[in-house]
């Protein structure tokens, strides 16, 4: 039963990928791909990297959200709702100001470090909240995020970098993804695989420090691994494509609504659905204002907010009954 669903899901991802490969301003068909070397260039320099980048970024961001939810024991948290994404953009801005010629790898490292620091700050503030209502946690995260982005905007205004910063931060724009500019995302894919590998440990760590230590888990180490995965994934994605709002929140929640909470079983689904959703948003963004493109994150913002609202209201009904 479940395996037939999995096959359907994989087939639809492949279908979406094919649509993504053949959608765009230059009209590429199978026959021209065979005969025309120019078309072949466009295909392999732009279309293929873009599709791969969409899948990798989407699934990585969803898994990062899932890990964050496990570690904070809160369903309504994800990197952009905990100051992580905003800190990564701050890091990116700082490196843009002080070392404008920095390589993409340096940018990525600095952004990831900032993301790590921001996430740690969030976790420290969380410890201070004594009575944890499920919704106070994301509220604090949202506000922390807006404080950090206010700092970022202030600095950017001062150095007159607001426009180039906007391109990154409000980004989620895959139109600039071409060969040579996305390869770091493979690293993100690798991290996602690593996260899938140790998924069970995250589940146990999510039960709390005492429990995890009792069953023989190195709690500090697994927390550190989780935080690093979240930070590096957010850092790289900010540098390569820009922020992807709500993704890490809605995908794990929808999957858990449909299939329960056994992480080992659900994590492949989180990957698939995350990649598929971003792919779908990007295709919509390419079609609705043809020949102009609308960033995937803009579409995702609308769809994501609607789904999030649905989840919130749904959860409150459950709590009531």
């Amino acid at each position, binding site marked *: 039963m479940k395996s037939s669903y999995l096959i359907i899901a994989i087939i639809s991802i492949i279908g979406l990928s094919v649509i993504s490969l053949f959608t765009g301003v230059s009209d590429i068909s199978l026959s021209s791909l065979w005969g025309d070397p120019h078309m072949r260039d466009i295909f392999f320099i732009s279309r293929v990297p873009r599709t791969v980048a969409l899948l990798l970024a989407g699934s990585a961001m969803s898994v990062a959200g899932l890990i964050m939810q496990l570690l904070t024991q809160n369903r*309504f948290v994800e990197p952009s709702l905990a100051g992580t994404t905003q800190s990564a953009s701050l890091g990116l801005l700082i490196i843009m100001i002080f070392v404008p010629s920095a390589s993409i790898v340096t940018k990525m490292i600095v952004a990831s470090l900032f993301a790590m620091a921001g996430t740690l700050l969030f976790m420290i*503030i969380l410890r*201070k*909240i*004594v*009575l*944890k*209502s*499920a*919704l*106070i946690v*994301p*509220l*604090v995260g*949202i*506000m*922390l995020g*807006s*404080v950090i982005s*206010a*700092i970022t*905007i*202030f600095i950017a*205004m*001062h150095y007159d970098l607001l*426009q180039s910063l*906007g391109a990154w931060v*409000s980004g989620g724009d895959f139109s600039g993804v071409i060969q040579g500019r996305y390869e770091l995302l493979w690293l993100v894919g690798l991290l996602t695989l690593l996260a899938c590998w140790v998924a069970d440990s995250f589940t146990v760590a999510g039960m709390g420090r005492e429990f995890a230590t009792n069953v023989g888990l190195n709690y500090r180490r697994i927390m550190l691994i989780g935080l690093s995965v979240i930070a590096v994934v957010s850092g790289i994605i900010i540098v390569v494509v820009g922020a992807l*709002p709500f993704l890490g929140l809605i995908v794990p929640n929808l999957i858990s609504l449909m299939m329960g909470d056994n992480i080992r079983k659900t994590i492949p689904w989180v990957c698939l659905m995350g990649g598929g959703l971003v792919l779908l948003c990007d295709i919509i963004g390419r079609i*609705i*204002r043809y020949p*102009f493109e*609308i960033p995937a994150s*803009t*579409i995702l*913002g*609308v769809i994501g*907010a*609607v789904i*999030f*609202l649905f989840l*919130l*209201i749904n959860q*409150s009904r459950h709590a*009531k009954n």
Partner: protein
Amino acid sequence: MQKIKEHSRLSSIKLSPKQRIGLLLFLVAVIMTLFMTINLGNNLHYILVRRGYILFTMVIVAFAASISTVLFQSVTNNRILTPSLMGFEALFILIQTLIVFFYSGTSSYWLFNIIKFIGESCLLVAFSVLLYRWLFSSVHFNINLILMIGIVLGTLFRSAATLLQRLLDPNEFSVLQSRMFATFTKTTPELIWFSALVVFFFGFILWRKRYLFDVLALGRSHAINLGVDYRRTVTTTLLLVSILVAVSTALVGPLTFLGLMVANLAYLLAGSCQHRYILPTAFLLAVIALIGGQLILEYGLHMAGSLSVVLEFIGGIFFIYLVLKRF
């Protein structure tokens, strides 16, 4: 944060609410004089008129933000929710975008036109009253959930507006994007005068009901017991609050945290919980925050035009502090 500390020291001084308001009035007068007279150049007439308009805009915005927040908090019986946090401003921007999207399709989006403005405000008011009445009348929603829904609704409205703006005209998108930060210098005189008229007219209506709000602030069941037509009063108040927010947003753009800060500071500093003291205190504090903030930025730090960002920064920290203190 420095400012907050200073004020809390102030709150321990024994002064009657009226004396406190007098003190704030004095401060406002000093700050306004400073703002008008500092660094006057050669072209005296031009500079004075220009500064006068900026000052007037700030006073209107301070009035709208402070009054709407205090009343919203009294009606919803809480001190953390504000119209801005609940997405009122984002809703206004979305409605403006929608109207342009469906009717003119040109880039006259921010160009001011009073009839268009009235139409938009009516739409906003109708829509927000429906939406927020639904939110607040569902008894099983707790305050955290409502706040969360409000913030997400705000995000939704903003994203939808962005999407529509992009569909509208990709080439002019960057121009629109600059409107996402509040500015006090780009409004036209007729818009300022019209807004002043609207704001102070509704302000007067609200001021006449100041004792009613004292009763409402006691909470739903007390208010009903004391003979208030609860449903009707809440609806009219939400309606007036939406109008004030609409005017302020149309005038300068979104200012998320101003209302939250001044309302909470006003409870701290007014020395009384009666609305006849709270409302003026919050208003004067908002004026001080806006003009004083602008003065410090412009002449202290030599950075013009980023006041809204600084307010966002201080306001965000203030909000985290409020949440942590409360829970």
